[in-house]
């Protein structure tokens, strides 16, 4: 993975000093709340319900074992001994003290980490596929470009105070796993007809209050122009995006208002001035960064391993885990492994300091000392030998990291919700936990098969509920917490936004509602269908009927 040079290190060090000074000016009354707000937000610090929340950047989801160990240490020393991995592949601490945050940043800087632009109205952490560099269907490894873009976006002076937050995702696979269509800018890398690396640029997507899937702004642009083209898009947005109403300030609203053709025309016009300018990426710079993402020193291994095959045949629990948590790899004899942060009945995406230390050790022992955070809020060891899987499973299991539920109903994507977040209308974690307990029977869970369930505690949609096969949204009705249910959302190349099935439900009703939705699927499915396929074939009517019939009978 990318290693800082003296320049990178100096920037994070100078940032620590700058933020320390800003915080001390705030604490001594030299900065007002309003003046400090954008400063702390651009450093990932929210003032929350019980305590501030600090969001630490994990650029495009990559971590070294050393970094994860440090995160475990920080959570222990400055927080309550756990952290929450978010849907933007970052790590959130829920209980730090404001006055400690400069020290936390100083600690992070010692392991080449920071919290820059993890919140605020600026370019946020750039996200990508958690299997980047190892996925068999990958065309281009997007990580070098993601790092080039991370550096370019860091303290970009022109885009430091945009109308609203700005999220960029990059992807280089046939099957999109980075939800490029749900981002302000999505960059899909591919090989063009001349076998050159090119980008299809999506724009104007986003979830939140008004979920909209992005539109293609440009079908083809050479990789060298990635930064100047983004500058053209963001400049049009910075000058013309609405600032009068925070709910209408995302770029998607501007694109809708202008129409895609006019928006595209303005971007192209702007780009004519920026094209081939100094921020055009050079081959040398891309190479300098790309050398950090060379393939690992793999051993030459056979495609099969007898020990693994035997363990699968003789140990059903291991086989169930391997089926859900082990993923294909480019390199023969290797696999990627998802360590589930979704044990039933615990907050989705949470990891204790002990678990972070354990995962750091596992990655040193089995996966070249690196790991990934997925936007589904799990941890991934990306380069594990087939022959090591059984040993890894036993150790992961001992730390509660081997729930065989990846991609299943209980692998719930969930924001921190009303227990922590001051924006939330309703709690989300207790809903997730109750649903997980309702589906605690593993055989039943595996029979239901692939099903993505997403929960957001409010319109801001941190839990990506719009693209969940089942989406749950916390809403406030006369001061009490209710939950609106959507079905038919999906991430990927054929992304879709879910449809609301009807009036919302109380918290106690939610496990039963999910149960009824699943019942319709189990009754109606054809042998090959996943839940989402059945919803797409039948529409929402039969699901709605079954759920509300039960409600009326009750």
């Amino acid at each position, binding site marked *: 993975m990318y290693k800082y*040079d003296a320049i990178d290190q100096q920037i994070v060090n100078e*940032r620590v000093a700058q933020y320390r000074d800003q915080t001390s000016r705030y604490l001594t009354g030299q900065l007002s709340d309003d*003046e400090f707000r954008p400063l702390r937000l651009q450093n990932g610090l929210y003032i929350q319900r019980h305590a501030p929340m600090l969001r630490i950047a994990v650029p495009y989801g990559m971590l070294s074992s050393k970094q994860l160990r440090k995160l475990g240490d920080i959570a222990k020393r400055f927080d309550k001994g756990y952290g929450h991995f978010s849907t933007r592949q970052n790590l959130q601490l829920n209980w730090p003290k404001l006055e400690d945050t400069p020290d936390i940043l100083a600690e992070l800087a010692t392991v080449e980490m920071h919290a820059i632009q993890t919140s605020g109205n600026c370019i946020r952490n750039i996200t990508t596929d958690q299997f980047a560099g190892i996925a068999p269907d990958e065309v281009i490894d997007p990580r070098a470009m993601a790092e080039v873009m991370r550096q370019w976006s*860091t303290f970009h*002076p*022109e885009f430091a*105070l945009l109308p609203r937050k700005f999220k960029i995702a990059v992807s280089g696979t046939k099957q999109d796993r980075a939800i490029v269509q749900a981002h302000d800018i999505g960059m899909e890398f591919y090989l063009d007809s001349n076998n050159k690396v090119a980008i299809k640029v999506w724009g104007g997507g986003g979830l939140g209050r008004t979920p909209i899937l992005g539109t293609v702004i440009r079908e083809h642009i050479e990789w060298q122009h990635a930064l100047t083209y983004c500058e053209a898009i963001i400049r049009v947005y910075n000058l013309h995006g609405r600032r009068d*109403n925070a709910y209408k300030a995302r770029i998607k609203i501007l694109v809708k208002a202008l129409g895609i053709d006019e928006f595209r025309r303005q971007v192209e016009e702007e780009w004519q*001035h920026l094209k081939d300018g*100094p921020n055009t990426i050079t081959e040398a710079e891309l190479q300098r960064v790309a050398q950090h993402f060379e393939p690992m020193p793999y051993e030459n291994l056979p495609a099969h391993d007898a020990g693994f095959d035997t363990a699968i045949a003789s140990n059903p629990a291991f086989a169930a885990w391997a089926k859900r948590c082990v993923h294909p790899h480019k390199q023969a004899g290797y696999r990627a492994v998802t360590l589930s942060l979704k044990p039933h009945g615990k907050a989705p995406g949470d990891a204790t300091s002990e678990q972070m230390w354990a995962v750091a050790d596992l990655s040193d022992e089995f996966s070249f000392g690196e790991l990934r955070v997925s936007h589904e809020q799990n941890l991934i060891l990306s380069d594990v030998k087939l022959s090591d899987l059984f040993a890894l499973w036993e150790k992961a299991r001992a730390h509660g990291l081997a729930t065989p539920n990846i991609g299943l109903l209980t692998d719930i994507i969930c924001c921190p919700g009303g227990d922590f977040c001051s924006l939330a209308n309703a709690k989300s974690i207790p809903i997730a936990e109750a649903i997980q307990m309702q589906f605690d029977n593993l055989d039943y869970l595996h029979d239901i098969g692939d099903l993505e369930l997403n929960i957001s505690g409010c319109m801001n949609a941190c839990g990506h509920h719009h693209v969940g096969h089942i989406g749950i949204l916390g809403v406030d009705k006369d001061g009490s917490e209710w939950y609106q249910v959507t079905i038919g959302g999906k991430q990927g190349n054929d992304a879709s936004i879910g449809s609301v099935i009807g009036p919302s439900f109380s918290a106690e009703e939610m496990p039963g509602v999910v149960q009824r939705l699943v019942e319709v699927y189990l009754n109606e499915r054809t042998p090959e269908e996943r839940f989402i396929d059945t919803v797409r074939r039948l529409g929402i009517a039969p699901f709605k009927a079954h759920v509300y019939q039960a409600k009326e009978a009750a």
Partner: protein
Amino acid sequence: MSNLIKDNAIVADEWVRVIPPALGEETVRKQAGKVVLFKLTGEATYTPEQVAATKIPSTGKVLLPLDVWLANKDQLASRVNQGEVGLLIATHEPVENLLKAVTDINSFPLVAVFVERFPDGRIFSIGNLLRTRYGYKNELRAVGDVLRDQLFFLKRSGFNSYLIRADRSAEDALKSLQDFSQPYQGAVDMAQPVWRRVQRQGA
């Protein structure tokens, strides 16, 4: 003590900023129950009546809102020649309006951009466009809600003078111009990105 920073030093302000009078009560716009804090790009700043009622000091260097200058262009021609007129636009005014209104932007020794509220980042794009696209070479000043923690970005966006908000210390603010020694991306002050400026490790 002056609150004006120009080219990394605190200097006396020779310019008088002319502000059109408020005629009558200003209406507070609300949306979804919240006060609208930012004007939309393209919204008018002053009514024709306000512009007409504006009094311009007859001597000395005057910083005029674009609309006020346009309404008094002919009378001010000789003062422009003497370098006594500076132009000001607000962040919601399209910078193209300014360029359309003048034959040579460099015949004005001062252009100022007024930012009503510091989180309004349009000011950065406006500075950048004035310098890189429209070739403006003279003093470019940020006025209004200009605070220390935005100075570094303003500098990188092409501003070289900053009138710090009256209740804040310009001396303190000066320090922030040096917040970062080697920024990553090319911008107005340093056009080249870091990888073109210095030899990076591993390159």
